[in-house]
């Protein structure tokens, strides 16, 4: 046993650093007429995250670089941004997974009003979220003061969509959302899905009705950008398709 563990163990190589170039789309609403690109050279290690690079820039080079972040390990949803053209969480994108022989482009997510540098206004996003009744709708508490019963199979039915951290990577990657921002967007649908397929919930009809809207599920053109962008690996397009089918059926 002991030898198995030691031999299987990873021996980290001595830490090599190198210089990576970041081209960041800056926008200071108090100064700039329009966004501009700015280059930064940063000393990095392969295992560093893009968030580390942003921090290094902010803490060592330019304190005015502005972005949101909190948990730094992909569970709070603060730092969705566009890295080399794709929506990613800065804290979940490692330098080693990018081609650093070329500069790394970082810009704010698309389709939401740009506020400053990498920060966008999230209110329209949360508005959509709020409008799908994202909460358990039931007549009242249980009579015996205990939990509602739910079998493991029923629980597994909506497991995938409970993982959402509301980071907006999906919604802001959706070409339909970019067009006019009226579409509810994948994140709202994911959160509706989470309740529509929860066996305890009694509000599926209401939610299906909301999503059977001009700006609802039918606007999804199955471009899969959302699924590719989701840092939680949620099968977003699949979830949307399931909601469409539920609307056609008239029940979950």
């Amino acid at each position: 046993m002991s030898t198995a563990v030691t031999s299987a163990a990873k021996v980290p190589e001595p830490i090599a650093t190198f210089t990576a170039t970041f081209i960041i789309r800056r926008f200071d609403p108090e100064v700039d007429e329009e966004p501009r690109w700015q280059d930064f050279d940063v000393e990095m290690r392969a295992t560093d995250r893009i968030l580390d690079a942003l921090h290094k820039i902010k803490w060592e080079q330019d304190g005015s670089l502005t972005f949101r972040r909190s948990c730094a390990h992909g569970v709070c949803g603060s730092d969705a941004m566009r890295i080399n053209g794709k929506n990613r969480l800065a804290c979940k994108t490692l330098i080693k997974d990018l081609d650093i022989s070329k500069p790394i482009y970082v810009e704010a997510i698309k389709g939401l009003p740009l506020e400053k540098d990498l920060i966008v206004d999230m209110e329209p996003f949360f508005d959509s979220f709020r409008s799908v009744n994202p909460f358990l709708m039931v007549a009242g508490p249980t009579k015996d003061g205990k939990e509602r019963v739910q079998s493991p199979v029923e629980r597994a039915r909506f497991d995938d969509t409970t993982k959402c951290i509301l980071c907006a990577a999906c919604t802001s990657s959706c070409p339909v959302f970019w067009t006019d921002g009226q579409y509810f967007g994948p994140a709202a649908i994911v959160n509706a899905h989470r309740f529509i397929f929860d066996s305890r919930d009694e509000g599926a009809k209401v939610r299906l009705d909301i999503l059977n809207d001009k700006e609802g599920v039918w606007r999804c053109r199955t471009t899969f950008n959302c699924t590719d962008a989701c840092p939680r690996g949620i099968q977003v397009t699949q979830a949307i398709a399931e909601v469409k089918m539920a609307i056609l059926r008239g029940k979950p």
Partner: protein
Amino acid sequence: MTSTNTEAESASTMIDGVHYHQFDIVIVGAGGAGMRAAIEAGPHARTAVISKLYPTRSHTGAAQGGMAAALANVEEDNWEWHTYDTVKGGDYLVDQDAAEILAKEAIDAVIDLENMGLPFNRTPDGKIDQRRFGGHTREHGSAAVRRACFAADRTGHMILQTLFQNCVRLGINFFNEFYVLDLVMTKVDGVDQPSAVVAYELATGELHVFRSKAIIFATGGYGKIYKTTSNAHTLTGDGVGIIWRKGLPLEDMEFFQFHPTGLAGLGILLSEAARGEGAILRNASGERFMERYTPTLKDLAPRDIVSRSMATEIREGRGAGPDKDYLYLDITHLEPAVIDEKLPDITEFARTYLGVEPYTEPVPVLPTAHYAMGGIPTTNNAEVLRNNTETVKGLYAAGECACVSVHGSNRLGTNSLLDINVFGKRAGKNAVEYVKTAPFVPLPENPTAGVQAILDMVRSGDGTERVGAIRKELQDSMDRNAQIFRTDESLSEVTKLIERLRARYKNIALQDKGKRFNTDLLEAIELGFLLDLAEVLVYSARNRKESRGGHMREDYPERDDKNFLKHTMAYLTGDPESAEAGDHIRLDFKPVVITNYPPMERKY
């Protein structure tokens, strides 16, 4: 700003560029504790929740393993055993009446969450499933018990989401990305009474005064005083710092928990749930070393003991890796299907951040700064204490920023998610009762003066120092000197450093001079709180000349019940700039409440 209640918004006015709002209850912090309080308060009083982050970004969402409650869904269990485990886990520094409340109300707290929609994992017959966790035992320590209710390894995420969802349902007023920087106190009949909080709006740089009858602090922990930590960048202890600067006491600040299994080098947490599901800690030679330290509970001993054992293994040269400086968490013997069902997130962290495949390889881990046992002292009703016996009327605290104290000198895993729900609810309920009869406390002459002073101080700085550099020095030193093992020498080194850092802090330069989304400015202010809290922590730790729970003094390795079976109460009494910590910090003590469990030797 999110305001779902327009009626409340219209109540706000602007005078001299400062916004004034009025509510019955203002909750500072939208983590688990804050939102749980909001759900109690919202329907009964005009309530606002102010948070420096969007609610769902709060660090409650990072909690993984579970929430304890003696539901006895899978095996015999009862709340009395849970109380005992909590008391013993906290090395008898726990207030036992509070622990009893915690354990008793745990059951309702879990059921409440389930009824609100939380998708717990289920047993085959459809009840809430439960798993083992460190220090939770049956029959007073005879064997590990399955007490932690969980939703895969994202229990905190599901709690945070569920609470947020219910706040949406209730139409709670949120003021998001508003940084509360001061608590306004007004002298009434010779006593300081809270009348408002002052917040800085990130988006605009404008100040808001929230006048309120009751104020609940739920601002979370301050793990960022350390470098290696499982805590978020935003956990800078602002709330605790604000209370401190008001001259109100902080309790048991010397006790900080180091979680045994952070990803080596990063501090990202791998939940104890891994060990609850059967993971094993091994040293370089593959030995299951915990068998030597705690033969009964082995890897599921409380965190202070496991972390200390790990540090000992490394010190004695049994660490793994080229520098022998980490250990392994081994789950290779678990079925991949079980791992996928119960531990999907943490295995992904190992893959993403260390490039290790947990199905087949052991994961390099190290203890990581995790949880503040200490904080704002409160009664069992979440009322903030002014001293050992009196409370501050209308001021409440709950969650990690508070110290009830249910965790004593070492918190048991899964007891914090419980804490935020039980005492968050209590804070909300009691505030509602209070505001029914209480009047508004008049505002003082210039309520924003305190915040203006802070802003001027950091803004005016055209010095040469960088915030990032000062913070890094503090964190490095805390990791080196105030971590698992402490001595008077190491601790006083930090005290001296803080003194120097304070001088440099006055000389900082901000590069962002703007008003909108000035995170440069806020990081500077947060650093001020970090310095304050690190200083109290270290000062309290120097004074506690014994080893207990999370506080291990190598120069005083034994627990000393005769002299130190008491809570530390620290007060800011003078100018924090004064050279000696002793010049501006006064330490006092508060007796521990002991009901059923007289202190005993702690063996597992």
